[in-house]
Protein backbone atom coordinates (compact mmCIF):
# COMPACT_ATOMS: atom_id res chain seq x y z
CA UNK A 1 0.00 0.00 0.00
CA UNK A 2 1.45 3.33 -1.03
CA UNK A 3 1.21 6.26 1.35
CA UNK A 4 4.36 8.12 0.33
CA UNK A 5 3.65 11.79 -0.43
CA UNK A 6 -0.02 11.34 0.40
CA UNK A 7 -1.86 13.90 2.45
CA UNK A 8 -3.77 12.86 5.54
CA UNK A 9 -6.83 15.11 5.33
CA UNK A 10 -10.04 13.30 6.10
CA UNK A 11 -11.03 9.94 7.50
CA UNK A 12 -13.28 9.66 4.45
CA UNK A 13 -10.14 9.13 2.36
CA UNK A 14 -9.45 5.86 4.17
CA UNK A 15 -10.72 2.43 3.30
CA UNK A 16 -10.75 -0.30 5.93
CA UNK A 17 -7.62 -1.78 4.33
CA UNK A 18 -5.80 1.52 4.67
CA UNK A 19 -6.83 1.89 8.29
CA UNK A 20 -5.68 -1.65 9.07
CA UNK A 21 -2.39 -0.92 7.35
CA UNK A 22 -1.82 2.20 9.47
CA UNK A 23 -2.80 0.44 12.68
CA UNK A 24 -0.42 -2.43 11.95
CA UNK A 25 2.37 0.04 11.27
CA UNK A 26 1.56 1.77 14.57
CA UNK A 27 1.92 -1.47 16.46
CA UNK A 28 5.47 -1.86 15.18
CA UNK A 29 6.23 1.68 16.37
CA UNK A 30 5.15 1.07 19.94
CA UNK A 31 8.50 -0.02 21.43
CA UNK A 32 10.09 3.09 19.92
CA UNK A 33 7.23 5.26 21.18
CA UNK A 34 7.84 3.88 24.67
CA UNK A 35 11.53 4.70 24.45
CA UNK A 36 12.51 1.03 24.64
CA UNK A 37 14.13 1.15 21.22
CA UNK A 38 15.89 3.95 19.43
CA UNK A 39 15.15 4.83 15.84
CA UNK A 40 16.65 7.08 13.22
CA UNK A 41 13.99 6.27 10.65
CA UNK A 42 13.25 9.95 9.96
CA UNK A 43 16.67 11.37 10.68
CA UNK A 44 17.37 14.35 8.44
CA UNK A 45 13.65 15.00 7.98
CA UNK A 46 11.95 18.13 9.28
CA UNK A 47 8.31 18.38 10.28
CA UNK A 48 6.61 21.79 10.50
CA UNK A 49 3.99 22.18 13.20
CA UNK A 50 1.67 24.85 11.88
CA UNK A 51 -1.06 25.51 14.42
CA UNK A 52 -3.40 28.43 13.84
CA UNK A 53 -5.22 27.64 17.06
CA UNK A 54 -3.78 26.12 20.19
CA UNK A 55 -3.94 22.42 20.98
CA UNK A 56 -1.06 21.62 23.25
CA UNK A 57 -1.66 17.89 23.44
CA UNK A 58 -2.01 17.26 19.74
CA UNK A 59 1.07 19.37 19.12
CA UNK A 60 3.10 17.51 21.75
CA UNK A 61 1.97 14.17 20.43
CA UNK A 62 3.15 15.00 16.90
CA UNK A 63 6.40 16.46 18.19
CA UNK A 64 7.10 13.38 20.27
CA UNK A 65 6.30 11.12 17.32
CA UNK A 66 8.77 12.97 15.10
CA UNK A 67 11.50 13.15 17.75
CA UNK A 68 11.17 9.45 18.62
CA UNK A 69 11.87 8.65 14.97
CA UNK A 70 15.00 10.78 14.94
CA UNK A 71 13.47 13.61 12.95
CA UNK A 72 13.44 17.31 13.68
CA UNK A 73 10.53 19.59 14.42
CA UNK A 74 10.06 23.16 13.36
CA UNK A 75 7.40 24.65 15.54
CA UNK A 76 6.05 27.80 13.99
CA UNK A 77 4.75 29.07 17.28
CA UNK A 78 1.59 31.04 17.64
CA UNK A 79 0.75 32.06 14.13
CA UNK A 80 -2.33 34.15 14.69
CA UNK A 81 0.02 36.69 16.20
CA UNK A 82 2.26 36.93 13.15
CA UNK A 83 1.14 36.29 9.59
CA UNK A 84 -2.65 36.11 9.96
CA UNK A 85 -2.50 39.52 11.56
CA UNK A 86 -0.67 40.76 8.47
CA UNK A 87 -3.43 39.31 6.33
CA UNK A 88 -1.42 36.57 4.65
CA UNK A 89 -3.49 33.79 3.13
CA UNK A 90 -3.09 30.21 4.26
CA UNK A 91 -2.19 29.34 0.67
CA UNK A 92 0.79 31.71 0.81
CA UNK A 93 1.91 30.50 4.22
CA UNK A 94 1.86 26.91 2.98
CA UNK A 95 3.82 27.76 -0.17
CA UNK A 96 6.52 29.38 1.95
CA UNK A 97 6.71 26.72 4.65
CA UNK A 98 6.72 23.76 2.27
CA UNK A 99 10.06 24.99 1.03
CA UNK A 100 11.57 24.57 4.48
CA UNK A 101 10.31 21.17 5.56
CA UNK A 102 9.43 17.61 4.52
CA UNK A 103 5.90 17.50 5.94
CA UNK A 104 3.44 19.88 7.59
CA UNK A 105 1.05 19.23 10.45
CA UNK A 106 -1.75 21.76 10.23
CA UNK A 107 -4.40 22.83 12.70
CA UNK A 108 -6.69 25.62 11.61
CA UNK A 109 -10.01 27.06 12.80
CA UNK A 110 -11.66 27.01 9.35
CA UNK A 111 -13.32 23.92 7.93
CA UNK A 112 -11.64 22.65 4.80
CA UNK A 113 -8.34 24.37 5.61
CA UNK A 114 -6.39 21.11 5.37
CA UNK A 115 -7.77 20.33 1.92
CA UNK A 116 -6.88 23.83 0.77
CA UNK A 117 -3.37 23.43 2.19
CA UNK A 118 -2.95 20.15 0.32
CA UNK A 119 -3.82 21.91 -2.94
CA UNK A 120 -0.90 24.30 -2.49
CA UNK A 121 1.66 22.14 -0.71
CA UNK A 122 4.46 20.20 -2.36
CA UNK A 123 4.96 18.18 0.84
CA UNK A 124 2.47 15.96 2.69
CA UNK A 125 -0.10 17.76 4.88
CA UNK A 126 -1.32 16.03 8.02
CA UNK A 127 -4.59 17.45 9.26
CA UNK A 128 -4.55 17.93 13.02
CA UNK A 129 -8.05 19.40 13.05
CA UNK A 130 -9.75 22.00 10.88
CA UNK A 131 -12.56 23.78 12.67
CA UNK A 132 -15.54 21.54 13.19
CA UNK A 133 -14.26 19.54 10.23
CA UNK A 134 -11.91 16.60 10.24
CA UNK A 135 -9.37 15.38 12.77
CA UNK A 136 -8.32 12.07 11.26
CA UNK A 137 -5.39 11.31 13.57
CA UNK A 138 -7.76 11.40 16.56
CA UNK A 139 -10.01 8.87 14.87
CA UNK A 140 -7.08 6.64 14.03
CA UNK A 141 -5.74 6.72 17.57
CA UNK A 142 -9.21 5.89 18.90
CA UNK A 143 -9.38 2.91 16.57
CA UNK A 144 -5.88 1.87 17.56
CA UNK A 145 -6.80 2.05 21.24
CA UNK A 146 -9.83 -0.15 20.63
CA UNK A 147 -7.73 -2.60 18.66
CA UNK A 148 -5.02 -2.80 21.32
CA UNK A 149 -7.19 -2.76 24.41
CA UNK A 150 -10.27 -4.54 23.12
CA UNK A 151 -11.07 -5.70 19.58
CA UNK A 152 -12.34 -4.11 16.37
CA UNK A 153 -14.03 -7.24 15.07
CA UNK A 154 -17.50 -7.81 16.51
CA UNK A 155 -17.15 -4.77 18.72
CA UNK A 156 -19.96 -3.60 20.99
CA UNK A 157 -19.36 0.00 21.94
CA UNK A 158 -21.37 2.66 23.76
CA UNK A 159 -20.76 6.35 23.16
CA UNK A 160 -21.93 8.72 25.85
CA UNK A 161 -22.17 12.47 26.18
CA UNK A 162 -22.44 15.16 23.55
CA UNK A 163 -23.19 13.21 20.40
CA UNK A 164 -24.63 16.18 18.55
CA UNK A 165 -21.68 18.50 18.21
CA UNK A 166 -18.82 16.12 18.99
CA UNK A 167 -16.99 15.60 15.72
CA UNK A 168 -14.74 13.08 17.46
CA UNK A 169 -17.62 10.69 17.98
CA UNK A 170 -19.07 11.27 14.53
CA UNK A 171 -15.77 10.41 12.86
CA UNK A 172 -15.27 7.43 15.12
CA UNK A 173 -18.75 6.11 14.30
CA UNK A 174 -18.10 6.41 10.56
CA UNK A 175 -14.84 4.52 10.94
CA UNK A 176 -16.41 1.85 13.16
CA UNK A 177 -19.15 1.31 10.60
CA UNK A 178 -16.42 -0.10 8.33
CA UNK A 179 -16.00 -2.84 10.93
CA UNK A 180 -19.73 -3.46 11.38
CA UNK A 181 -19.69 -2.42 15.02
CA UNK A 182 -22.75 -2.47 17.28
CA UNK A 183 -23.00 1.06 18.58
CA UNK A 184 -25.15 2.25 21.48
CA UNK A 185 -25.68 6.00 21.68
CA UNK A 186 -26.27 7.50 25.10
CA UNK A 187 -27.04 11.19 25.30
CA UNK A 188 -29.47 13.74 26.68
CA UNK A 189 -32.17 14.44 24.11
CA UNK A 190 -30.73 17.92 23.45
CA UNK A 191 -27.46 16.37 22.38
CA UNK A 192 -28.61 13.40 20.32
CA UNK A 193 -26.62 12.40 17.31
CA UNK A 194 -28.10 14.08 14.20
CA UNK A 195 -30.51 11.81 12.33
CA UNK A 196 -28.59 12.25 9.09
CA UNK A 197 -25.40 10.89 10.62
CA UNK A 198 -27.21 7.95 12.20
CA UNK A 199 -28.71 7.08 8.80
CA UNK A 200 -25.33 7.36 7.10
CA UNK A 201 -23.60 5.17 9.63
CA UNK A 202 -26.34 2.55 9.55
CA UNK A 203 -26.17 2.48 5.75
CA UNK A 204 -22.42 1.87 6.00
CA UNK A 205 -22.85 -1.23 8.13
CA UNK A 206 -23.05 -0.27 11.81
CA UNK A 207 -25.93 -1.32 14.03
CA UNK A 208 -27.19 1.59 16.10
CA UNK A 209 -29.37 1.64 19.18
CA UNK A 210 -30.11 4.65 21.35
CA UNK A 211 -30.74 4.76 25.06
CA UNK A 212 -30.59 7.41 27.74
CA UNK A 213 -28.63 5.97 30.61
CA UNK A 214 -25.22 4.39 30.90
CA UNK A 215 -26.51 1.80 33.39
CA UNK A 216 -28.94 0.50 30.81
CA UNK A 217 -26.22 -0.24 28.28
CA UNK A 218 -23.21 -1.03 30.41
CA UNK A 219 -23.59 -4.79 30.90
CA UNK A 220 -23.43 -5.52 27.21
CA UNK A 221 -20.55 -3.43 25.86
CA UNK A 222 -16.82 -3.98 25.35
CA UNK A 223 -15.96 -0.29 25.20
CA UNK A 224 -17.55 2.79 26.74
CA UNK A 225 -16.45 5.99 25.00
CA UNK A 226 -17.13 9.05 27.15
CA UNK A 227 -17.13 12.63 25.92
CA UNK A 228 -17.34 15.95 27.62
CA UNK A 229 -20.61 17.87 27.75
CA UNK A 230 -19.95 21.54 27.34
CA UNK A 231 -21.73 23.93 29.65
CA UNK A 232 -22.19 26.41 26.81
CA UNK A 233 -24.66 24.03 25.13
CA UNK A 234 -27.15 24.63 27.90
CA UNK A 235 -28.67 28.06 28.43
CA UNK A 236 -29.88 26.93 31.86
CA UNK A 237 -27.04 25.95 34.27
CA UNK A 238 -29.42 23.81 36.33
CA UNK A 239 -30.29 21.78 33.25
CA UNK A 240 -26.59 21.32 32.50
CA UNK A 241 -25.91 19.96 35.98
CA UNK A 242 -28.84 17.58 35.76
CA UNK A 243 -27.65 16.21 32.43
CA UNK A 244 -23.97 16.13 33.38
CA UNK A 245 -24.73 14.21 36.57
CA UNK A 246 -26.74 11.64 34.72
CA UNK A 247 -23.89 10.95 32.32
CA UNK A 248 -21.20 10.60 34.92
CA UNK A 249 -19.51 7.32 35.68
CA UNK A 250 -18.63 6.16 39.14
CA UNK A 251 -17.67 2.70 40.43
CA UNK A 252 -21.41 2.16 41.09
CA UNK A 253 -22.28 2.83 37.44
CA UNK A 254 -19.95 0.01 36.49
CA UNK A 255 -21.48 -2.57 38.85
CA UNK A 256 -22.86 -4.67 36.01
CA UNK A 257 -20.06 -4.01 33.53
CA UNK A 258 -18.13 -6.79 31.83
CA UNK A 259 -14.83 -7.47 33.48
CA UNK A 260 -12.97 -6.61 30.29
CA UNK A 261 -14.88 -3.34 29.70
CA UNK A 262 -12.57 -0.52 28.60
CA UNK A 263 -13.40 3.14 29.14
CA UNK A 264 -12.08 5.72 26.70
CA UNK A 265 -12.17 9.50 26.69
CA UNK A 266 -10.49 11.96 24.31
CA UNK A 267 -9.49 14.15 27.31
CA UNK A 268 -9.48 16.57 28.91
CA UNK A 269 -12.27 15.32 31.16
CA UNK A 270 -14.21 17.55 33.49
CA UNK A 271 -16.09 15.35 35.92
CA UNK A 272 -17.73 12.76 33.70
CA UNK A 273 -15.34 10.06 34.91
CA UNK A 274 -14.90 9.70 38.66
CA UNK A 275 -11.19 9.61 39.53
CA UNK A 276 -11.83 6.40 41.47
CA UNK A 277 -12.09 4.70 38.05
CA UNK A 278 -8.53 5.69 37.14
CA UNK A 279 -6.85 2.82 38.97
CA UNK A 280 -9.22 0.14 37.71
CA UNK A 281 -8.38 -2.07 34.71
CA UNK A 282 -11.32 -0.41 32.92
CA UNK A 283 -9.55 2.94 32.63
CA UNK A 284 -8.01 3.34 29.25
CA UNK A 285 -7.96 7.10 28.60
CA UNK A 286 -4.36 7.81 29.53
CA UNK A 287 -3.18 4.90 27.40
CA UNK A 288 -5.38 6.30 24.64
CA UNK A 289 -3.45 9.58 24.84
CA UNK A 290 -0.18 7.64 24.61
CA UNK A 291 -1.40 5.61 21.62
CA UNK A 292 -1.59 8.85 19.67
CA UNK A 293 2.19 8.75 19.50
CA UNK A 294 2.71 5.39 17.72
CA UNK A 295 -0.21 6.18 15.39
CA UNK A 296 1.33 9.53 14.41
CA UNK A 297 4.75 7.89 14.10
CA UNK A 298 3.24 5.39 11.68
CA UNK A 299 1.59 8.15 9.64
CA UNK A 300 4.79 10.20 9.49
CA UNK A 301 6.82 7.13 8.50
CA UNK A 302 4.30 6.26 5.79
CA UNK A 303 3.82 9.69 4.18
CA UNK A 304 7.55 10.38 4.26
CA UNK A 305 8.19 7.06 2.58
CA UNK A 306 10.42 5.69 5.38
CA UNK A 307 8.14 2.68 5.78
CA UNK A 308 5.80 1.04 3.32
Amino acid sequence: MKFKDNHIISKKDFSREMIDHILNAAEKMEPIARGEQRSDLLSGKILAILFFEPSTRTRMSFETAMLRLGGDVLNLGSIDASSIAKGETLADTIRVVDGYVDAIVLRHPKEGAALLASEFSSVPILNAGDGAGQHPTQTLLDLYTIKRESHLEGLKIALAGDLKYGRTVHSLCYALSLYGAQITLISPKELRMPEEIINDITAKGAKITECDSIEEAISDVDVLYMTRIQKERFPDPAEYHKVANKLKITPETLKNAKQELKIMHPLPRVNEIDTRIDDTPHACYFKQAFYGVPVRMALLGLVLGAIE
Partner: protein
Amino acid sequence: MSDIETELRVRRIENGTVIDHITAGKALNVLKILGLPDSSHGVVSVLINSYGKYGKKDVVKIENRELKGEEVDRIALIAPNATINIIRNFNVTRKNKVQIPSFVEGVVGCINPNCISNSNEPITSKFKVTTEDTGLKLRCSYCGRVISENIAEQLL
Protein backbone atom coordinates in the same frame (compact mmCIF):
# COMPACT_ATOMS: atom_id res chain seq x y z
CA MET B 1 -50.62 39.44 -33.80
CA SER B 2 -49.24 41.89 -36.33
CA ASP B 3 -45.55 41.89 -37.21
CA ILE B 4 -44.93 44.98 -35.19
CA GLU B 5 -46.62 43.47 -32.15
CA THR B 6 -44.56 40.33 -32.54
CA GLU B 7 -41.46 42.45 -32.81
CA LEU B 8 -42.40 44.31 -29.66
CA ARG B 9 -43.20 41.26 -27.63
CA VAL B 10 -40.69 38.72 -28.82
CA ARG B 11 -37.85 39.71 -30.98
CA ARG B 12 -36.71 36.88 -33.21
CA ILE B 13 -32.98 36.59 -33.43
CA GLU B 14 -30.98 35.91 -36.54
CA ASN B 15 -27.95 34.34 -34.91
CA GLY B 16 -27.20 33.44 -31.34
CA THR B 17 -28.64 31.41 -28.49
CA VAL B 18 -32.13 31.09 -27.06
CA ILE B 19 -32.45 29.58 -23.62
CA ASP B 20 -36.00 28.38 -23.33
CA HIS B 21 -38.06 26.72 -20.59
CA ILE B 22 -36.23 28.45 -17.78
CA THR B 23 -38.06 27.97 -14.48
CA ALA B 24 -40.37 31.00 -14.21
CA GLY B 25 -38.76 33.84 -12.30
CA LYS B 26 -35.21 32.53 -12.66
CA ALA B 27 -34.13 34.37 -15.82
CA LEU B 28 -32.15 36.99 -13.94
CA ASN B 29 -30.31 34.29 -12.04
CA VAL B 30 -29.53 32.61 -15.33
CA LEU B 31 -28.03 35.88 -16.60
CA LYS B 32 -25.97 36.11 -13.45
CA ILE B 33 -24.57 32.61 -13.83
CA LEU B 34 -23.70 33.28 -17.46
CA GLY B 35 -22.10 36.61 -16.63
CA LEU B 36 -24.55 38.40 -18.93
CA PRO B 37 -24.87 40.99 -20.30
CA ASP B 38 -21.23 41.89 -19.51
CA SER B 39 -19.83 38.87 -21.32
CA SER B 40 -21.65 39.59 -24.59
CA HIS B 41 -21.72 42.52 -27.01
CA GLY B 42 -24.96 41.51 -28.69
CA VAL B 43 -28.47 42.32 -27.59
CA VAL B 44 -29.72 40.22 -24.72
CA SER B 45 -33.49 40.00 -24.31
CA VAL B 46 -35.27 38.50 -21.38
CA LEU B 47 -38.85 37.29 -21.10
CA ILE B 48 -40.14 36.69 -17.64
CA ASN B 49 -43.39 34.80 -17.00
CA SER B 50 -43.95 34.04 -20.65
CA TYR B 51 -46.72 31.51 -21.36
CA GLY B 52 -45.59 28.26 -22.89
CA LYS B 53 -47.15 24.88 -23.46
CA TYR B 54 -46.41 23.84 -19.86
CA GLY B 55 -47.37 27.07 -18.13
CA LYS B 56 -45.21 29.98 -17.11
CA LYS B 57 -41.57 30.06 -18.07
CA ASP B 58 -38.73 32.49 -18.66
CA VAL B 59 -36.77 32.87 -21.88
CA VAL B 60 -33.37 34.46 -22.50
CA LYS B 61 -32.14 35.37 -25.98
CA ILE B 62 -28.55 36.26 -26.64
CA GLU B 63 -27.75 37.66 -30.05
CA ASN B 64 -24.58 36.83 -31.95
CA ARG B 65 -23.20 34.49 -29.41
CA GLU B 66 -23.39 30.69 -29.35
CA LEU B 67 -23.10 29.44 -25.81
CA LYS B 68 -21.05 26.32 -25.21
CA GLY B 69 -22.51 23.27 -23.49
CA GLU B 70 -20.48 23.32 -20.31
CA GLU B 71 -20.98 27.03 -19.61
CA VAL B 72 -24.71 26.62 -20.05
CA ASP B 73 -24.98 23.44 -18.00
CA ARG B 74 -24.33 25.39 -14.83
CA ILE B 75 -27.72 26.99 -15.19
CA ALA B 76 -29.24 23.52 -14.67
CA LEU B 77 -28.60 24.14 -10.97
CA ILE B 78 -31.49 26.61 -10.90
CA ALA B 79 -33.33 25.86 -14.15
CA PRO B 80 -33.12 22.10 -14.65
CA ASN B 81 -35.65 22.01 -17.52
CA ALA B 82 -34.05 24.70 -19.65
CA THR B 83 -33.30 24.02 -23.30
CA ILE B 84 -30.52 25.59 -25.30
CA ASN B 85 -31.29 26.51 -28.90
CA ILE B 86 -28.52 27.60 -31.19
CA ILE B 87 -29.91 29.91 -33.87
CA ARG B 88 -28.31 30.46 -37.24
CA ASN B 89 -30.00 32.49 -39.90
CA PHE B 90 -33.29 32.52 -37.94
CA ASN B 91 -33.32 28.73 -37.73
CA VAL B 92 -32.74 26.46 -34.78
CA THR B 93 -29.69 24.46 -35.80
CA ARG B 94 -29.18 22.66 -32.52
CA LYS B 95 -31.41 22.09 -29.52
CA ASN B 96 -30.25 20.55 -26.25
CA LYS B 97 -31.64 20.14 -22.79
CA VAL B 98 -29.25 21.38 -20.12
CA GLN B 99 -27.36 18.62 -18.32
CA ILE B 100 -26.96 18.82 -14.56
CA PRO B 101 -23.18 18.91 -14.07
CA SER B 102 -21.68 16.46 -11.57
CA PHE B 103 -19.26 19.08 -10.35
CA VAL B 104 -19.44 22.88 -10.26
CA GLU B 105 -16.66 25.31 -9.63
CA GLY B 106 -17.06 28.96 -8.74
CA VAL B 107 -20.80 29.29 -9.46
CA VAL B 108 -22.20 29.14 -5.95
CA GLY B 109 -20.72 29.96 -2.56
CA CYS B 110 -20.73 27.68 0.48
CA ILE B 111 -23.42 28.34 3.10
CA ASN B 112 -21.02 27.56 5.92
CA PRO B 113 -19.59 30.88 7.15
CA ASN B 114 -16.67 29.00 8.73
CA CYS B 115 -15.73 27.27 5.48
CA ILE B 116 -12.24 28.09 4.18
CA SER B 117 -13.77 28.77 0.74
CA ASN B 118 -15.49 31.82 2.25
CA SER B 119 -12.22 33.48 3.23
CA ASN B 120 -9.83 35.48 1.07
CA GLU B 121 -7.87 32.43 -0.11
CA PRO B 122 -6.93 32.17 -3.81
CA ILE B 123 -9.39 29.37 -4.53
CA THR B 124 -12.79 28.97 -6.14
CA SER B 125 -15.62 27.14 -4.45
CA LYS B 126 -16.13 23.53 -5.52
CA PHE B 127 -19.20 21.37 -5.16
CA LYS B 128 -20.08 17.82 -5.98
CA VAL B 129 -23.59 17.73 -7.40
CA THR B 130 -26.00 14.86 -6.84
CA THR B 131 -29.62 14.49 -7.84
CA GLU B 132 -31.92 12.98 -5.25
CA ASP B 133 -35.67 12.51 -5.10
CA THR B 134 -35.88 15.66 -3.04
CA GLY B 135 -33.94 17.71 -5.58
CA LEU B 136 -30.37 18.76 -6.17
CA LYS B 137 -27.72 18.47 -3.50
CA LEU B 138 -24.46 20.39 -3.65
CA ARG B 139 -21.75 19.15 -1.32
CA CYS B 140 -18.88 21.55 -0.63
CA SER B 141 -15.55 19.90 -1.44
CA TYR B 142 -13.85 21.85 1.32
CA CYS B 143 -16.10 21.57 4.36
CA GLY B 144 -18.63 18.92 3.31
CA ARG B 145 -21.67 21.11 4.02
CA VAL B 146 -24.64 20.37 1.77
CA ILE B 147 -26.77 22.98 0.01
CA SER B 148 -30.14 21.57 -0.98
CA GLU B 149 -32.48 24.53 -0.83
CA ASN B 150 -32.46 28.03 -2.27
CA ILE B 151 -29.44 27.39 -4.45
CA ALA B 152 -30.17 30.65 -6.29
CA GLU B 153 -29.47 32.58 -3.09
CA GLN B 154 -25.97 31.17 -2.98
CA LEU B 155 -24.99 32.31 -6.46
CA LEU B 156 -21.70 34.16 -6.44
